[in-house]
C-alpha cells in the first residue's frame, strides 16, 4: 500500500518537474526532456499500478509494451521518410 503512495508522489513530482522545465527555450531538448519524463511516468504506472512487474506466469507480456512502441516508431519513422524528404 505504501508503495502505491510513493509511486503517486513521484508521479506528481515528475509532473511538476515537467511543467517547471517547460518553456525555457531549450529547443528540441525541451521536447526530449518532456517526453523522457512522460516515459518514466508511464513506466511507473505500467510496472506498479498495472502490476506488469509482478507478471510472473506470463513474463513475455512485459515485452508487449516495448514491442508496440517499436512498431509505432517504425510507423512514424517510415512516414517521416516521406514527409521530411519530400
Amino acid at each position, binding site marked *: 500500500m505504501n508503495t502505491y503512495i510513493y509511486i503517486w508522489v513521484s508521479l506528481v513530482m515528475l509532473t511538476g518537474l515537467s511543467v517547471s522545465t517547460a518553456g525555457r527555450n531549450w529547443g528540441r531538448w525541451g521536447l526530449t526532456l518532456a517526453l523522457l519524463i512522460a516515459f518514466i511516468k508511464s513506466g511507473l504506472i505500467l510496472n506498479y499500478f498495472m502490476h506488469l512487474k509482478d507478471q510472473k506466469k506470463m513474463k513475455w507480456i512485459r515485452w508487449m509494451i516495448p514491442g*508496440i512502441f517499436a*512498431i509505432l516508431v517504425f*510507423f512514424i519513422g*517510415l512516414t517521416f*521518410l*516521406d514527409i521530411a524528404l*519530400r
Partner: protein
Amino acid sequence: MPSFYEENGRFRGFWAWIFSTDHKRIGLLYLLSILSFYAIGVLLGFLIRLELIAPGPTIMRPQTYNALFTLHGVIMIFLFVIPGIPAIFGNFFLPIQIGARDVAFPKLNLLSWWIYMGGAALAILSLFTGGGPIDTGWTFYVPYSLRTPVNVPLAVLGVFVLGFSSILTGINMVTTTHQLRAPGMTWFRLPLFVWGIYATAWIQILVTPVVGITLLLTLMERLVGVGIFDPAKGGDPLLYQHLFWIYSHPAVYIMILPAMGIISEILPVFARRTIFGYKAIAFSSLAIAIVGSFVWGHHMFVSGQSDVASVVFSLLTFLVAVPSGVKVFNWVSTLYKGSIEVAPPLLFALTFIFLFAIGGLTGLFQGALATDVHLHDTYWVVGHFHYVIFGGTGFAIFGALHYWFPKMFGRMYHRKIPYIAWGLLFVGFNTLYFPMLLLGWQGMPRRYFDYLPQFHSLQFLSTIGSWILIGGLILMFGNLVHCLFKGEKAESNPWGGATLEWQIPSPPPRENFDEIPLVSKGPYEYR
C-alpha cells in the same frame, strides 16, 4: 454422443443459433452471413463486367457504376475476405485443432459476430440514407471522400465497426492459442492452419486500430471539419493514404495468411506424407506478418511521396516476396514422393498455388519502382489483386469448404460435380482476369465507367470469363447446398487426416472432446 446441432442449451430454434456461444455455431453463423455477402459481391461484380462489355454506356449511368464498384470493393474486402477464413474456419476448427473445448472468450466471440452484423447493417443502411450509396472506391481517399455529396459518414462508420469485430476475433484467437492448447500440443505440433490464424490474429490486433482512427478522423472531417486531412484547411491528403495503407496493406496478409494455412493442411492429407519444411512454413508466416507491416508505401509510388521513401518501401516489398516464395516451394516439395489422391480439396489447393503464384509474380512488377509508375492504378493492379485475393484466398475457401464439409455438416457432397465446377471456375477465372493484366500493360486505368475503343476486345473477353466463372460458382455451391440436406452420411475421417478435428465424430459433439486429448506427435504424421 449428440452432435452440436442437437444440443441447444438455453434457447430454442433460431435463438439457439444467434445467442449461442459455441464456437462451431458461431463459425456457421459467420459462414452463412459471409457467404450471403459474397453472393451480393459477386452479383455486383457481374454487373460491373456487364457494363464494360462494350464501350459507352451499356446498362447503367456513371454514378451507378461508381457506386457499384465501391460497394463491390467494400463488401468483398471488409465483409468477405478479411473476416472470411479467421471467422468461419478459424472459429470452427482452431479450438478443435489445438484440442480445446471452445475459444478463450466464448461470449466475446458471439459479440464479435453481432458487431460484424451491426457494421454490415450500418453499411447497408448507408445506401438508402443521406446522399445515397457511397462512390469513393473502397479506399475512401481524401479529399474526394470529403467532397462527394453521398453518404460517406455512415458507410465509414460501418467499416469502423467491422474493424472492431476483427480486433475482438484476433484477441480471442491469440489468447486461445496461448492458453488452451491440449497437453502435449507444443508450438511445433500446432497444425499450420493454427499458425496462419495466429499470425493473422496479431496483425488484426495491431493494425486494425490504425485504420479505425483514420476512418474516425474522416468521419470527424465530414461532420465537424477538423481539417486534419483536408488540403483546403492545411491538411495533407497523403497522410490519409499513409495511415490507410498502414492497415490496408497488412490487411492483404490478414486475407492470405490463413489461406496459406489451409493449403498447408490440405496438401499433406492428400499426399499422405508429412509437410515439407514445417518450421520454414510456420516462420515464414510470422516473417510475412512482421515485414508485411512495413511495406505500405508501395501503394504510393506515384502519389507524390518522397523518392527516398519510395525506394525504401520498394526494397522492403521485395523482401516480403521471399517468404511467400519459400512457402510455395515447400508446398510443391510436399508432393514429392507422396501418394497423391486428387480429391476436390487437393484440386483447389493446387489451383491456389498456381493462381497465387501468378498473383505474387505479377506483384513483382508493381514492387519495382519504374514499372509501377506505368502499372499503378491500371487494370494490371486489378488483375494482380484478383489473382491474389480471389485466386488465393477465394480458392482456399473453396478448398476448405470441400475439405471440412463432411466434418462441419456430417454429410458428404457429390464427389464428381466439384471437378466440373472446378473446370468452369479455372477457365472462367483466367478468362476473366488474365485479360486485365494485358489491359493494364496497354494502359487501361482502373475504376473507369467507359473506355477507349482499343481496349474493347479484351474487355469483352473478360466479361465472357465472368459468365463462365459464375456458372462454376453456381454449380459448386449448388452441389454443396444440395448435399447439405441430401448428401450421404460422412464418416468421421473420410480423408484420413491426422489432425485432431478428424479424430472426433462428424459433426463434432457440443464439447468437441469427451476427454481432452493428450498429444504425442506432429500434425501430419500418418504412420
